[in-house]
């Protein structure tokens, strides 16, 4: 392997800063990518990884700093200009045209032709060659993108970049939803590309893969670069420690948990292709954490608990009963509440007022013979606004105008108005500022103290460590770890979620 220091840097980002009003997303960050290397980029959620990549991709403009490509400074990057410089991005959301054939997808905007005719045969032949050369993969030429598996679509994305003679390939979480065999194959390709002199930027949460693949890793935290290390020499624990912010230990309000009867009991739940044989329970007054990487099955599990997806087998018991959870309608009448991850699409309606949102799931409470009693609604809503300290000038203000934290409080208020007993929270404090986070944690404690059962799914590991009585880790479809409060720290959680620790689950009492 060539000596890293002898390789020339092909992309240099120096002193990059990005502020959004008062929020500092990036402060003086540096990122240098050498040719012929695989460079990892790691950091917890909100550490600035995606911001710096978006700046390189020309999607976001930096507030300060310089970018050099091949030694020359570049300004005013746009997605097309960046591609022309040879820097290609393989996004997490597969930006491919679903109805295109493989050949068309690979050669969009660079179609081979004979005179005025697009040469479909050459296009398919070249696509075939590229796939065989780089991936040892043979696919029927006319296959449509939407007929491919996720892994194959990723491969098509990468092949498109390679067909354009990419010099730098930036892969954002490429191995989510890939099985080990496909991951190995992808790694083989990336290594070959590296040996050919191409620079690969590998963004991932999977520490084991970072260790296996990368020559160098840039670690980010809180919008700055904490360090650049060689994973072959620096142990993973040390890297993970660099990622975690230890200053926020005081954020989690203390509580005394009085644990009651089981409110949510899941037994042997299986969903083909997502998770297998999951069993867990959450009792009244308990906050149980749930975490897993993208593709681990944890999202699908949560959807099944709210009636959004039907599991193939297994039981879900709510307060001892087995409700027919065929849709959210049933979940809500079983007094299950859900705070979804996509607040905008599923959590609160941006175009409706605070009051309208809060009363949405419990209108029966405010209505008499089908008509809404605005007076009663106003009383209850104003009360909830006060109780939860929702910052809004009045209850008729549109939710769109509130900050993320307050929007989340409106969502919680909606379920309080419903008197839900089981709360399922999916990344509840994402895009919520620190102050509001503490308030939400206090709220959750209060809910639990009043006897609710809370299942908290989160990828913010400090949150799980700080809030939960127990935390379960899902890895590739199965519950692999269960930690009790005080018995785990964030490094262990991250390691467990990344599969870096051998599976270990306490016996359920």
């Amino acid at each position, binding site marked *: 392997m060539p000596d890293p220091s002898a390789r020339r840097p092909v992309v240099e980002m120096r002193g990059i800063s990005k502020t959004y009003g008062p929020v500092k997303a990036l402060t003086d960050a540096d990122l240098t990518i050498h040719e012929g290397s695989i460079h990892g980029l790691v950091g917890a959620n909100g550490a600035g990884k995606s911001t710096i990549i978006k700046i390189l991709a020309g999607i976001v403009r930096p507030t300060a700093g310089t970018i050099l490509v091949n030694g020359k400074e570049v300004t005013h990057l746009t997605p097309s200009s960046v591609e022309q410089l040879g820097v290609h991005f393989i996004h997490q959301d597969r930006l491919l*045209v679903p109805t295109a054939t493989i050949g068309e997808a690979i050669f*969009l905007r660079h179609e081979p032709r004979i005179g005025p005719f697009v040469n479909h045969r050459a296009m398919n032949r070249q696509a075939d060659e590229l796939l065989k050369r780089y991936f040892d993969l043979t696919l029927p030429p006319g296959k449509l993108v939407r007929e491919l598996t996720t892994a194959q679509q990723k491969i098509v994305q990468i092949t498109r970049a390679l067909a354009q003679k990419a010099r730098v390939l930036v892969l954002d979480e490429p191995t989510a939803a890939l099985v080990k065999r496909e991951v190995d194959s992808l790694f083989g390709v990336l290594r070959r590309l590296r040996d050919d002199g191409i620079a690969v930027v590998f963004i991932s949460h999977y520490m084991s893969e970072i260790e296996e693949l990368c020559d160098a890793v840039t670690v980010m935290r809180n919008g700055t670069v904490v360090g650049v290390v060689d994973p072959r020499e620096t142990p993973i624990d040390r890297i993970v420690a660099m990622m975690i912010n230890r200053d926020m230990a005081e954020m989690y309000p203390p509580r005394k948990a009085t644990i009651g009867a089981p409110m949510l009991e899941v037994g042997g739940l299986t969903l083909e292709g997502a998770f297998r044989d999951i069993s867990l329970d959450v009792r009244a007054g308990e906050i149980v954490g749930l975490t897993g990487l993208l593709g681990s099955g944890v999202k699908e599990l949560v959807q099944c608990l709210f009636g959004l997806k039907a599991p193939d087998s297994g039981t879900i018991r709510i307060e001892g009963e087995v409700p027919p959870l065929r849709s959210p309608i049933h979940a809500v009448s079983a007094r299950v509440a859900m705070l979804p991850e996509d607040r905008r699409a599923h959590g609160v309606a941006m175009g409706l007022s605070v009051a309208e949102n809060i009363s949405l799931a419990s209108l029966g409470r405010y209505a008499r013979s089908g008509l809404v009693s605005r007076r009663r609604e106003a009383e209850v809503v104003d009360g909830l606004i006060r109780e939860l300290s929702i910052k809004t000038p009045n209850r008729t203000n549109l939710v769109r105008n509130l900050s993320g934290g307050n929007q989340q409080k409106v969502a919680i208020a909606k379920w309080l108005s419903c008197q839900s007993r089981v709360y399922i929270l999916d990344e509840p404090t994402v895009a919520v500022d620190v102050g509001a986070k503490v308030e939400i944690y206090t709220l959750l404690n209060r809910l639990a103290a009043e006897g609710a059962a809370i299942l908290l799914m989160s990828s913010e590991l400090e949150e799980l460590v700080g809030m939960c009585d127990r935390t379960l880790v899902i890895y590739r*479809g199965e519950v692999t770890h269960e930690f009790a409060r005080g018995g785990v720290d964030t490094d262990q959680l991250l390691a467990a979620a990344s599969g870096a620790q051998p599976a270990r689950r306490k016996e359920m009492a």
Partner: protein
Amino acid sequence: MTMTDTAPRAARSGLTRKNLGAWAIRLGALAMFAAILIYFAATARGFANPYNIMNVVEQSAILGLLAFGMSVVLIGGGSEVQTGGIDLSLAANTGLCAAVFANCMQAGVPEAAAIAAALVTGMVIGLLNALAVVRLHILPLLATLAVMNIAAGLELTVTQNTVISVSSPFLMGLAMGSFLGISSLAWVFIVFSALMVWGVHFSRTGLRLYAVGGHREAARASGLNVGRYVTGTYVFAGLCAGLASVLIVARLSSSTPGTGQLLLSVLAASLLGTVFSRRFIPTMGGTILSVLFIGFLANGFQLSGVSSYWVNGVQGALILLVVAVTSFARPSEG
């Protein structure tokens, strides 16, 4: 560190079963087409007559031209039907162009200039649609609905709801002439079809148009100017309206009110065409097949003595059938 491969496979969307279903639909559609043709050939007097067949092809020229325009708009607008592209003003636009053309001819304007006026009118209306959809972000269905009424109203003001008779050697030649035994109108259809097949399936612009309609974000990320492509589709549809209007005036030797009635058939042809394509998106081949299908269907009804009022309803029902069936067959996108 050894890790056993316990990970669940990436979800396969039941590919084989869905593929078979898709095949079944396409074969079924073709089979239905063939079956209906055979039925009419057997029961309707004169259906299988070569003159009759040529007549149908000839009549399809006008519908075909318009259906091509509509299909192009559908392709560029995408299959997400809520926000997808559509041009409800196409038939009214055609009527307006015909009125302009006939009026110009009657006023003594030289023929070439009159034809140019028709084409320009069509494209201007198309540009208006494009402005509404691309610049003002109005939903295509609403925008073109409003423009449809503007065009229909303008047509009425130009014609005063009367028939304007027009005749000229060129138009006569267009309507009745023939070359190598095939009528001029049929030639127009054939030539235009060939151009469309090249333009949409074998040119770079066509492929990129499919990308724009297939996944707007992906197209943008690849550097395509989405706005320009969508504008182009509406202007092209307007051009088709202009061309079709010349053919209509030639055929009828006049411009007559009621061109707006064509809208249903045009929509039917373009929407039905999707069922013949492997990807369930509008294609030129599919459009040609549906245009002929509709032509033969109407012709068969006529020859069998079935009231023509059934045709519209049958077309509407077919549209619904096709949409329902293709939305089930299309694998749900994650």
